[in-house]
């Protein structure tokens, strides 16, 4: 099939950006969107032009590197899907596919479709861990954890840190990202000693990094490739309020 790509091009954070259109012929339905971009880039290089820069690595939906707004939806309109898992069979001959970067202040643009998500790392560094040093941990089975709790923790821990939740949110809030990490560790006994401090510190860092407030529109959940539930945001809010009142 034949497709038109409208791609955001911007040389660096300070340069002006604009859409460019590229025609793609002979698109196979089995191609992934990133493979289509490979083909387009090949054409660009052949013409002596600079290829479209985009983040990607594993191309199997787990590393969280890929990040595009596809026809207005973060990671495209399919639920539970990363950009690298979008296949061209989702489109029909003659379609136009519009590709934009994550747009959010705390994710400054690097080039074209690439943004800087190091603010997420800084949020984790402020509390997204259990403070245990290497060595001296008790036997793993000394701490039984019910299967239900373990599964619940896993549901939150599945976050791949891609930032789609922020890109999809009109306030550019990172609440789902923070809630996933807080919820993962709050579901487990290991996470209890630092539970209050974790919620408070991570939210403080989130605010400082310039992410917006959550107004419960739930666009984050719809965009999340790992389908992390907004229920974790409710739990985070409860933890946060409790932590604030107990530290007062």
């Amino acid at each position: 099939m034949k497709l038109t790509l409208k791609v955001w091009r911007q040389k660096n954070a300070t340069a002006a950006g604009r859409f460019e259109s590229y025609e793609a012929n002979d698109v196979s339905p089995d191609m992934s969107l990133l493979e289509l971009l490979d083909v387009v880039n090949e054409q660009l290089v052949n013409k002596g032009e600079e290829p479209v820069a985009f983040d990607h690595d594993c191309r199997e939906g787990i590393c969280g590197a890929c990040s595009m707004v596809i026809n207005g939806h973060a990671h495209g309109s399919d639920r539970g899907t990363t950009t690298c898992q979008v296949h061209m069979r989702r489109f029909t001959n003659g379609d136009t596919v519009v590709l934009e970067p994550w747009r959010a202040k705390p994710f400054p643009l690097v080039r074209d479709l690439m943004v800087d998500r190091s603010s997420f790392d800084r949020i984790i560094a402020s509390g997204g861990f259990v403070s245990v040093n290497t060595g001296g941990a008790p036997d793993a089975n000394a701490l039984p954890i019910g299967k239900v709790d373990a599964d619940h923790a896993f549901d939150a821990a599945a976050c791949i840190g891609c930032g789609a939740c922020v890109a999809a949110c009109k306030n550019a809030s990172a609440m789902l990202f923070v809630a996933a990490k807080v919820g993962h560790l709050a579901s487990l006994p290991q996470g209890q000693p630092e539970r209050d401090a974790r919620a408070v510190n991570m939210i403080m860092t989130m605010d400082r990094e310039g992410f917006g407030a959550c107004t419960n529109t739930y666009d984050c959940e719809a965009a999340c490739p790992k389908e992390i539930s907004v229920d974790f945001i409710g739990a985070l809010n409860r933890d946060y309020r409790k932590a604030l009142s107990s530290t007062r």
Partner: protein
Amino acid sequence: MKLDARIPSGPLAQKWSSFKGSMKLVNPANKRKYRIIVVGTGLAGASAAASLAELGYQVDAFCFQDSPRRAHSIAAQGGINAAKNYPNDGDSVWRLFYDTVKGGDFRAREANVHRLAEVSTAIIDQCVAQGVPFAREYGGLLDNRSFGGAQVSRTFYARGQTGQQLLLGAYSALERQVGLGKVKMHARTEMLDVVVDNGRAVGIVVRDLTTGVISTHAGDAVVLGTGGYSNVFFLSTNAKGCNVTATWRAHKRGAGFANPCYTQIHPTCIPASGDHQSKLTLMSESLRNDGRVWVPQTKGDVRRPDQIPEAERDYYLERRYPSFGNLAPRDISSRAAKLVCDSGLGVGPGGRGVYLDLADAIKRLGHKTIEERYGNLLAMYGKITDENSYEVPMRIYPAPHYTMGGLWVDYSLMSTVPGLFVIGEANFSDHGANRLGASALMQGLADGYFVLPPTLSDWLAQAGPSSASTGTAAFTTTVQQVNEHTNKMLAVKGHRSPELLHRELGNIMWNKCGMGRTAAGLQEAMREIKDLRGRFWQELRVTGDGACMNTQLEHAGRLADFLEFAELMCRDALEREESCGGHFREEYQTEEGEAQRNDKDFCHAAVWEHRGANQPALRHREELTFDNVHLATRSYK
């Protein structure tokens, strides 16, 4: 090049404790005066950086990805082995050690493997303490399963995302140290060279991928945890960014490269769908626990798989390896798949596939259990192929996945360049000629959490701080060489992209240095690689310049190193005149088509010494002695 493995004396089971008992210590007050450079932030790199910082060292960590959390360890699906013997089914440190040595076809160093098995149990404790959500039973204890060729259940797992959860555990430990100011993290920064001064590794040269700025970093030791080189095949299960640059540059600066021909072709990957294919995706071989592998018995059978009656199917793994069946080790399963496809029985596009069928398991255990066990894998398969594998058997085909070869290291994980340590997949240490399933995560974390911190401390205590600063001649000349190399690539201004040239290299390697190798094929491959390398320097086209984010330039640089490395890989395969593990030389096989080892002449690690562009590398050997296990012929019949 002197190869001294520096294995502690004494009985096998006491070597590691005796090392720790007699190691030299760095005074706690002095530790913060040492700066350690860690390149790569996968399981090995992240766990090492975190653990070293916890001990009090200053750490600078580097990764080319935009965040340390993206390293490709994250994609490991199946699980992590540990000799906990929780299921009470007869496992022990000895058995894990023995299985690993045997699985590696008796081409690994006994002492290292035993240490790996010893520390395996502490890894699970550590990860659970960090909050890694391993699978559990209803009683609350950890669940185990048997995995890829093991007859005991010693594999811990977290749904089909064990690598992700372990990496995020190590990443959170790393970020904690970043928050405490003990680790300085340099993301989107690629190492382009190691700086060696007076025979000691004293730092690295890196490129900031966002700005293109080249900078230098000095340290008292350099640790490489930069993964494997499967992308030499272009199509592999590795992430697109995985590359050989760090280890190859270190090799060119004096580090011996061991057994580059030992590569693992994983049996259960999704077959390529066409020429556009940019990478291959692995389906965890945990699926082989419940899935049965088969092909039609007659050539050209085009019926839908569910229309082919039981009696007309060939469950070839169960037939050829009755006691291991569908769980036969990876190298054996991969070759068996190639064999049936080569004989014209393959299924799917181009006949490059075999069925992995869950129908019996679904009948036996129910849809729900299968979904619980493999739901995310089957969903991933569905996304890629648009097929529902609860109803239609999956199609799988082998793909390059892991590389057992790597930089040679001694017992302390130090390369032949003093001060240069190598951990995880980047070293050659523990898997011999073939790696067992669920052992990569184990080795990466063993090296990073438990082995490197004491061995590096021991070395620093003896070697003392390095006096080199980034202003010295060693640094300025290395930077100059890096810049010359970059400018040379930009100056070619040919007509072919690095992507196209890389695909060509991949073709040569897959056809002639892949699952089956012959002397003639390897010699041909070496000629073709040389030719391609020549063309690279005439035909390469990198658009843009070096002073900004330039993904073409990054790819070109990695490919330039692959093009040099590939030749050594073929040469190593050529000179190893035997079949062992993942290295299958067609000239050396038994009548039944099984690998035929030659212990008399090849019971050694081949370690290559670089001698400049104009002289072939020199082959050294580290003889492998087996005092504790008997060199048996591997049989999984």
